[in-house]
């Protein structure tokens, strides 16, 4: 028994003495280590904010900042350094970006990335001096658009975050979020879920229509205005009388619009690009087309997808395109895939056979653009055949 007690006492005493010595050592070294770690952390911050002093971590939980901002440090003179995580071309990038008190980028550097081309290592130099207003105008690097656009987006987030931390307010919503918010505000009954409607009639000054997924109604877009319309065509948003009349008229046309399938097998000369055609009550035609872009005609070396581009077009009986949209495509990501952007396909709106070629081609995607144009040209042929002119 005595032996056991002695064992316990000795071992406990040894532990206690060692613990005491460690406490003393810690008391001496802890402040030095803390100072060193702070200096090491500041060194990384100084890279993007030369001359910065007294960096202090900011508690982000108190602010609604862009989601890319993961860490923020305030600086003595009113500037901030942000650590941002953003998706690039592959696994994403971690970027440090300094913003001074006047809202200008003092420096940006990519800490880690899995990008393929390495442009993220040098792109930071081009954003120095940019402000929240000017950053969007910076060029991306051709061939590394995704990487550099994501980088630029992250820098913009840092600039916006600096404004928010400085007490200002800024809209940090993405374009999709803004659209969703506008649609919900116009038609709260839509529950926030909407799908774009292909306009099958010639409408005055209506640029887009969205249908609520729960069939509660529609939202008509006219210029900057989002106007809610219930399923019976009554305008439910508070808008000016003029706009109410305009939307109300458009809604009536759309509700009355019916389409009738056309049996294309009856037309032997119908081009193969035209997959289906419908005639609307007002005499317009809706065509579903397929275009042989890079996916079909691209060099085998680049391993093209083997898929057509599918296009929907509304044209008048006189052969004028009212609306055009890309339904689906599998063109080369980042190059020919731009044919799915509204910027590209809406160029055909209002075009006729005489001028449909006068559009801006997709940069670096001649095969895609030419295939698309060929399919569009068949719209005019098809209208002529259906109207019995050909």
């Amino acid at each position, binding site marked *: 028994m005595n032996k056991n007690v002695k064992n316990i006492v*000795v071992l406990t005493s040894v532990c206690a003495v060692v613990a005491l010595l460690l406490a003393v050592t810690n008391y001496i070294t802890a402040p030095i280590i803390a100072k060193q770690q702070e200096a090491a952390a500041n060194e990384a911050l100084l890279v993007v904010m030369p001359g910065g002093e007294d960096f202090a971590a900011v508690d982000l939980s108190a602010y609604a900042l862009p989601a890319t901002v993961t860490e923020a440090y305030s600086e003595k003179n009113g500037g901030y350094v942000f650590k941002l995580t953003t998706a690039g071309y592959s696994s994403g990038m971690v970027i440090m970006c300094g913003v001074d008190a006047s809202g200008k980028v003092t420096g940006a550097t990519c800490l880690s990335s899995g990008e393929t081309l390495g442009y993220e290592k040098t792109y930071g130099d081009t954003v120095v001096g940019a402000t929240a207003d000017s950053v969007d105008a910076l060029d991306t690097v051709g061939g590394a658009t995704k990487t550099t656009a994501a980088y630029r987006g992250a820098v913009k987030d840092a600039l916006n975050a600096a404004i928010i931390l400085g007490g200002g307010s800024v809209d940090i919503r993405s374009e999709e979020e803004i659209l969703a918010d506008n649609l919900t505000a116009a038609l709260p009954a839509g529950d926030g879920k909407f799908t774009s409607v292909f306009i099958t009639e010639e409408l005055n000054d209506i640029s887009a229509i969205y249908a609520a997924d729960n069939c509660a109604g529609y939202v008509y877009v006219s210029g900057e205005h989002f106007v809610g319309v219930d399923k019976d065509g009554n305008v439910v948003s508070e808008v000016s009388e003029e706009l109410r009349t305009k939307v109300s008229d458009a809604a009536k046309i759309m509700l009355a619009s019916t389409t009738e399938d056309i049996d294309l097998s009856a037309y032997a000369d119908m081009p193969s690009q035209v997959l289906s055609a419908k005639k609307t009550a007002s005499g317009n035609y809706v065509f579903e087309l397929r275009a042989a872009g890079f996916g079909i005609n691209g060099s085998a070396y680049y391993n093209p997808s083997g898929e057509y581009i599918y296009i929907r077009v509304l044209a008048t009986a006189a052969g004028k395109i009212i609306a055009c949209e890309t339904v689906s495509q599998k063109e080369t990501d980042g190059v020919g895939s731009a044919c799915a952007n509204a910027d590209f396909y809406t160029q055909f709106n209002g075009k006729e056979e005489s001028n449909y070629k006068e559009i801006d081609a997709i940069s670096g995607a001649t095969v895609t653009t030419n295939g698309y144009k060929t399919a569009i040209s068949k719209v005019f042929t098809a209208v002529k055949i259906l109207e019995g002119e050909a």
Partner: protein
Amino acid sequence: MQKNSNASVLLRGLLLENPVFVLILGTCPTLATTTTVIGALSMGLAAMAVLICSNAVISLLRKVIPDGVRIPCYIVIIAGFVTMVQMFVQAFLPEIYELLGVYLALITVNCIILGRAEMFASKNTVGKSVLDGVGMGLGFTLALLAMATVREVLGSGSFAGIALPFFSTHTISFFVKAPGGMLVYGVMIAIVTKLTHGKAPKKKSFACAGCPSAAMCNASACETSAVKEDN
């Protein structure tokens, strides 16, 4: 030289009982930290500091610590000193701290230190134990330095970070990798065995005596394997 004279205690760690090349202790840090001369030197000195301190304290407490709890006591003392060294290195030599990484903390389980505590410090006076710590520490440091010199010069073409003419343009990266470390280690052991031929302690003579568990163990397992190896 008398077997237990101060001079012999100090010197035997250098070659005759070199912990790395003769006793084959501390192999893990030996292979891991000998890719650079600076790393090897830092590791050697850190281990030496812990060895001297733990030897001194364990020798001082050798009559106080009961047999039944001596191993836990030794480990607490050694771990305490290692943590102290770690804190000081982190505070005052942060670059070395980064360089050694986890191997600094692993000095705690370095067999050289526990081995010397058990084999020497627990049976000798404080003065002799300190001398043993210095000797063994120097032996460990010099062994690491010798290996690191070969590996860094051949593998990286530099010595202590300074690029050497000819070598820097003809590097053999094999030497800074694990297999290169093994090769150099083996060759060094062969050289030391040749140099100390007949004088170094036989494996049998320190096999069981040097084992921290010898007192608790019935020795049959060890002896059987020792006999097999001798055959």
